[in-house]
């Protein structure tokens, strides 16, 4: 019999520990999508998809161990699901020739594919997120010039994750002359009274919330307790999911956050998952979680990974198992237009996306959604980060990285490989 062809997907997850409430739906989304593709399409062009989860607990060293373990099982693509693990793996993947997807997180500079050959911060980085939020605020105020003299507070998770947006916000501050207050919150963020005392003292016009896990709900509760209007609070897309607001309930009403993707059970891809996976009793989590914000994000990450494999197969041979390098090419040459997205059932869930050798992010689109006490509702149009500001910053940061690591920028020839 011909050898069964299997493309192996390692799944680094955290279903325990402080970030489990956020990590679990995310992990379930990824797993369910894999199951769905196998069930619906029989894999990718006949190549079956297999996977194995490894619990990282959001800890870097455990993440590295998982990476090493799953790498040995033929992994060709990793999604570390944590900024710390991403940093630790960035150097390792170069030697191992395995691409990293860091959708919506990771190093902002790694958008520059000429330097970061193996990193793919698809759909957005913290810089794009910060940029879009400032744009949104400007729009609300009625123009960038109106931002002058306004006070914007950044309440952030005191870790590389929380600190990433600062360079961009500093840049924007210089441009528009608003005041930027930086208020760090010690991880994991269970005690924020002093942060909110400062908010109350300074009375900023807006609060940008750069939190993850328990920090978000606690921030909302403290905001409620100090009487800071939730309507003036804007979260990054990691601070805009159900676990963040669920137990705050009424208190979170009016709170805004960026949305990288839609949520809800109506999109076709979600319906497919319900049909092919959950209805057969094979769902990874409870049914009502399907289609929640982080779940859907998991689905998207997995879908993009699989599309990269599909794209790679187009070049290197349909129905073959792809290597890490081939998958990397696939990721670098994604071209998901609306038609393709619709065909995948992802239409409306995310915007068209195409990557290139120079741009490992693809397009970055997001909307703002607002919690009404029971569910998230969109409250803005799709936005995009301002390339004018972003590009030079990314380039500069990437150059600095390259200099430190003594890396050469990739040649056009290398881009073809």
């Amino acid at each position, binding site marked *: 019999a011909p050898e069964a062809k299997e493309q192996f997907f390692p799944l680094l997850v955290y279903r325990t520990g402080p970030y489990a*409430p956020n990590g679990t739906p995310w992990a379930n989304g990824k797993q369910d999508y894999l199951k769905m593709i196998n069930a619906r399409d029989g894999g990718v062009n006949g190549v079956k998809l297999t996977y194995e989860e490894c619990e990282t607990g959001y800890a870097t060293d455990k993440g590295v161990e998982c990476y090493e373990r799953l790498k040995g099982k033929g992994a060709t693509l990793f999604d570390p699901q944590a900024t710390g693990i991403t940093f630790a793996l960035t150097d390792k993947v170069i030697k191992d020739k395995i691409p990293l997807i860091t959708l919506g997180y990771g190093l902002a500079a790694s958008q520059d594919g000429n330097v970061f050959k193996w990193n793919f911060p698809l759909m957005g980085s913290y810089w794009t997120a910060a940029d879009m939020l400032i744009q949104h605020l400007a729009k609300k105020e009625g123009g960038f010039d109106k931002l002058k003299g306004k006070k914007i507070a950044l309440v952030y998770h005191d870790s590389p994750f929380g600190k990433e947006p600062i360079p961009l916000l500093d840049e924007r501050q210089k441009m528009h002359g608003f005041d930027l207050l930086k208020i760090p919150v010690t991880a994991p963020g269970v005690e924020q009274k002093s942060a909110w005392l400062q908010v109350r003292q300074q009375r900023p016009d807006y609060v940008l919330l750069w939190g993850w896990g328990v920090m978000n709900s*606690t921030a909302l509760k403290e905001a409620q307790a100090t009487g800071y209007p939730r309507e003036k609070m804007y979260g990054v897309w990691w601070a805009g999911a159900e676990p963040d607001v669920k137990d705050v309930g009424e208190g979170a009403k009016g709170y805004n956050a960026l949305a990288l993707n839609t949520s809800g059970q109506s999109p076709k891809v979600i319906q497919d998952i319900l049909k092919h996976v959950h209805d057969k009793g094979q769902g990874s989590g409870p049914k009502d979680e399907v289609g929640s914000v982080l779940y859907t994000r998991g689905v998207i990450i997995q879908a993009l990974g699989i599309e990269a494999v599909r794209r790679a197969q187009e070049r290197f041979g349909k129905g073959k198992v792809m290597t890490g390098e081939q998958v990397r090419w696939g990721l670098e040459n994604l071209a998901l237009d609306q038609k393709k997205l619709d065909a995948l059932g992802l239409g409306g869930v995310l915007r068209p996306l195409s990557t290139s050798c120079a741009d490992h992010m693809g397009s970055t689109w997001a909307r703002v959604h607002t919690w009404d006490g029971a569910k998230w509702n969109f409250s803005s149009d799709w936005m995009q980060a301002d390339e004018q500001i972003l590009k030079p910053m990314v380039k500069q940061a990437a150059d600095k990285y390259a200099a430190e690591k003594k890396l050469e920028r990739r040649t056009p020839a290398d881009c073809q490989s």
Partner: protein
Amino acid sequence: MGFVIETIFGGLMTGMLYSLIALGFVLIYKASGVFNFAQGAMVLFAALAMARFAEWIPLWTGISSPLLANLLAFVAAFAVMVVVAWGVERLALRHLVNQEGITLLMATLGITYFLEGLGQMVFGSDIYKIDVGMPKDPIFLFEKSFEGGVLINKEDLYAALIAAAMVALLALFFQKTATGRALRAVADDHQAAQSIGIPLSTIWVIVWSVAGFVALVAGIIWGSKLGVQFSLSLVALKALPVVILGGLTSVPGAIIGGLLIGVGEKVSEVYLGPALGGGIEIWFAYVLALLFLLVRPQGLFGEKIIDRV
């Protein structure tokens, strides 16, 4: 001026909340000489039990009154904590009589892992809600005297009152009752306590149950503030400087320590933090405790550390 008062007030309230957790540490230490690192895990475990029972009991029994459901859940959660206490004694402490403090401390870390695993497995690792009707909105005082008034968080106020009541009760218990005296004896010397007939097993089950009760109360208060999820167990870290500042063996010390640490860390963060780049409160609390200890190595109210030849 209004803001200064508000900061101090906020610190006091937070401090009381720390005290509530510190109390659990003091209780077990004072009564068995064990520095119980599992206190944080117990808070989480108790809160998880409470939250889930409050969710399940209406499903199981069809009770619709939230008050009744909460009450039943409280009883059920306490029962669970008693079982935990019993298990801890039976499976761990009983076999560790007369061992050194550090061995006992490590054992409680083992218990921490166990409880964290068990809690999440039985009760789930999502975020759960405890709603015992704590008021969430702020009140403003002295609005006439200061611009904007002095904001006070009602929830914190209630919590602080509960904490104070529990501390008073426990302090009395230790100082005034024969059992309290026996507990202090056990902490000093397990073997000698055994030799005069103090039944360590029973005593430990009782103490750990009381600590479980304290954990439950702390869990409910913190849980209704933070939501019940894993991070609740990390709150214990904030209580540690309180415990050593107040003195490991002093129940009132837990309160005073809590207040000092609470005010110290809030004032430092709000007034010093911005100059230093922020986020200093966590280490500031420890440094504060450290400085106090340099003056009084046994903490403010702790029993003097005895070394005699």
